[in-house]
């Protein structure tokens, strides 16, 4: 119940980050989701990611649409500004907020109904615009809040709780995003925090839109045998392609580097994303190759997970719009209003 105050108990062993805040300071109110919901694990990973990145909570704009996943922004970073908007409209809200104040750290939380159906257009255009945000799809292949209808990400043949098979092909947000120029595409599993946390951290630091599709099983409506978004199915079929490390700029990079199969990409702020144990033929910076590889794996029923693609050279929305460095919200009126003399001169043209 979100109106029940969560006790703020801090264990003395909790390690404060550079702002002196412990992981507890990045939590939100009590979750009202079903016990065991994958979304709660994602929330926990988000909390850790923000804490570990030393994020000032009030700089975070956490925005969502409607659905189970969209309830979760109340459950993390209570010191952040939150906006639970309308179904499928989160991308537009974030786009506007980010356009106004480019210093905000924008995180959008969405689900498969919110992003694959009603908000599919907005997702695509936010990707095309390369809005500087972390876009999380908590993907459970089912409409939870309305009690169990198939969603647009339900796999062909996947069975509903009542045993009815899904007959329409799914929209895969990962391949969709790649095909329209996404610059950061990942898939993860809510049950694998070790993988998810570094991906979220890298996504938050990525300049541009970072899309993270998180398979997040619905314990109530879609965790049965026959579901392809269940805990059992996902654990069995997930194929870690690139185990990801994220090394923030300030940390000593050399300390964590392993020899052998690894690839590193340095982000704009100097932090490093490192792909460990990548398959020999897997190049996470080659869009065409990634697409081909995913097609092939997916066809064989596997669920490739990890940070699958990264293009650090994409042009982010503000760079494309060539806005000034200072956030538009901070521009004084004098720099916006041309004044009476300019109006007089201008009007000589309307003669």
């Amino acid at each position, binding site marked *: 119940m*979100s*109106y029940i105050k969560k006790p703020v108990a801090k264990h003395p062993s909790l390690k404060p980050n550079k702002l002196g805040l412990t992981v507890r300071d990045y939590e939100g109110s009590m979750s009202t989701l079903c016990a065991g919901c994958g979304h709660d694990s994602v929330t926990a990973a988000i909390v850790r990611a923000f804490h570990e990145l030393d994020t*000032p*909570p*009030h*700089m975070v*704009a956490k*925005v969502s649409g409607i659905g189970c996943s969209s309830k979760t*922004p*109340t459950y993390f970073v*209570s010191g*952040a*500004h*939150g*906006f*639970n*908007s*309308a179904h499928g*409209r989160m*991308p*537009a*809200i*974030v*786009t*506007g*907020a*980010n*356009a*106004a*104040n480019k*210093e*905000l750290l924008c995180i959008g939380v969405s689900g498969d109904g919110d992003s694959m159906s009603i908000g599919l*257009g*907005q997702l*695509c*255009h936010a990707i095309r*615009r390369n809005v500087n945000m972390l876009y999380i799809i908590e993907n459970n292949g089912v409409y939870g809040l309305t009690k169990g209808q198939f969603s647009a990400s339900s796999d062909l043949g996947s069975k509903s709780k009542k045993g009815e098979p899904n007959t329409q092909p799914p929209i895969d947000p990962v391949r969709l995003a790649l095909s329209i120029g996404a610059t950061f595409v990942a898939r993860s599993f809510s049950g694998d925090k070790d993988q998810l946390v570094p991906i979220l951290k890298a996504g938050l630091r990525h300049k541009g839109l970072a899309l993270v599709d998180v398979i997040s099983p619905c314990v109530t409506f879609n965790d049965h045998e026959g579901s392809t978004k269940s805990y059992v199915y996902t654990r069995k079929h997930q194929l870690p392609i690139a185990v990801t490390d994220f090394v923030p700029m300030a940390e000593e990079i050399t300390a964590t580097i392993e020899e052998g199969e690894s690839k590193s990409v340095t982000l704009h702020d100097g932090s490093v994303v490192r792909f460990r144990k990548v398959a020999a033929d897997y190049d996470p910076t080659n869009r065409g190759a990634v697409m081909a590889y995913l097609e092939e794996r997916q066809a064989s029923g596997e669920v490739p997970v990890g940070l699958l693609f990264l293009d650090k050279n994409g042009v982010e929305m*503000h760079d494309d*719009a*060539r*806005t*000034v*460095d200072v*956030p*538009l*919200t901070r521009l004084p*009126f004098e*720099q*916006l*209003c*041309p*004044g*009476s003399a*300019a*109006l*007089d001169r*201008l*009007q000589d043209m*309307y*003669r």
Partner: protein
Amino acid sequence: MTRVNDFAFKLANVNGTGSASANGLLMQAIFRMGIPVSGKNLFPSNIQGLPTWYEIRVNKRGYTARTSDYDLMVAMNAETYARDVQEVRSGGYLIYDSSWPLDRGLTRSDVTFLGVPYARLCTETFAESRERTLMKNIAYVGTLAALLDIDMGIIAGMLKEKFGKKPALMESNRKAIQLGYDYAKEHFEHPLPIRLEKMDATKDSILIDGNTATALGCVYAGATVAAWYPITPSTSVLDAFKTLCEKFRTDKETGKRRYAILQAEDELAAIGMVIGASWAGARSFTSTAGPGISLMNELIGLAYYAEIPAVIVDVQRVGPSTGMPTRTQQGDILLCAYASHGDTKHIVLFPANPGECFDFAVKSFDLAERFQTPVFLLSDLDIGMNDWVIPRLKWDDNHRPNRGHVLSREDLEALPKFYRYSPEDELGVAARTLPGVHPKGAFFTRGSGHNRLGGYTEIPAEYQDVMDRLARKHRAARNCVPEAVIERRSKATFGVITVGGCDLAVREALDKLEARGLVADYCRVRGFPFGDEIEEFMHGHNPVFVVEQNRDAQLRSLLTLETNVPKDKLRSVLAYGGFPLQAAQVVDGVVAELEEEQAHSRSSD
């Protein structure tokens, strides 16, 4: 009978043949001669090949509403020729292209036909085929200059301004105009009895369309984020905003911009972006037309309920559905007043001309932020896309925007605890905070049920508490929207209420009615919620005619819904065919109604 500076003429063209530039030139030349003038572009929803008309009315007394009483027709479109011939008033003139023989069946004995072989002249003069077509239209400018006594010096000056950097084009235009001019001078008596004479009535005026003026208002208001989806007839608002921002808001050294224009994927996204930007603290607006408002309804309700400022420009066109995109109407009054599901009410401003588009655009942002709510600027195609002669726009350099109650870092530092929706001020508004300012300002914005502290609720009393405050807030805005314009006449026996672009036609009609002994007071609504002066006006007159441009008497409905005025004293005069309102339509409507009433009262005596 000679009529100086008091006539109307119409130009019938095929669109995409350069006629817009010729017609604009004519209108501007007359404006520069100091004569009150208006131009109405009656164009099709098409890029090339369909009929298009342009009407110019000159009137020394300043009656520049549309009239369909044409003294002269320039019939350049064979396809519409038969119809165009019929539209000229008896005793009028018709200019046609005499390169081909005139269809005898299409002449009229009461109209003087003036044939100019434009096609032949242009074929002889210009080599290239595209140029031959375009210059035919430019050539009639010269003919009209000769017949109506337009100052050729002014035309030459305008060509120089327009084509100064393209000497070849300037020369073609000059040559074409001269062709039409010389031919008329040689072959016709000139000037005609309807003609122009220089005046001094437009010296302190400008020639501007409402959409440009709206965009200018948005720039001067300090709007930094504009999100939109292209739609006729509002597209030129954003075109102008872009041009103006490039001029005024681009850093000369770095080329960086103090604005962001987001061309959205649809209107749902456009309004979402505006709400997001306003939520984050920018002044933000969108510009659209009726179909866009239909799509935006969902999020307009969110902005209303979560109390987020948003400025929405609606340049109305003819509905329903796709309707007639290039024709004008006032069909979105009710749609905007109550946009979105559930109990919603909005602030709506009704400009009547480009001057008010500018002023009200500035005002919209102040109201949106002061009341933390969507504000509609309800323009229309006639105001938005036609060029109007208006007094020069004024700007007070002491003007500072009213950003409403926004807590600063220091405010928040001093505050024990922040609650989004309380305490409320005298207008029913609570302070808001912006993301990124201070940890204490954090709160959760939601379109779901919430209480006065901003927390989620499903408790009836808590929900109603907030909804009741929103109603109080809306009511309080009645004293902040622009006051109605009220003009009283001595011995007035009834009242006329109107809105927006009906202004000129109705005021002209009132003069005409007075000449017939029917004297009425005038009230033009400029904002919703309605100020008390509007209700008083209605109580003080019987009957009250409500003149508006839609089928369903939407303003009248809104007046009866939102005031205590008895419905039966409000009589409608409606014009909704898609062309700008004419004084004659108002006169006829009022007279018919009054006569019917008299007949009725006689029969019941």
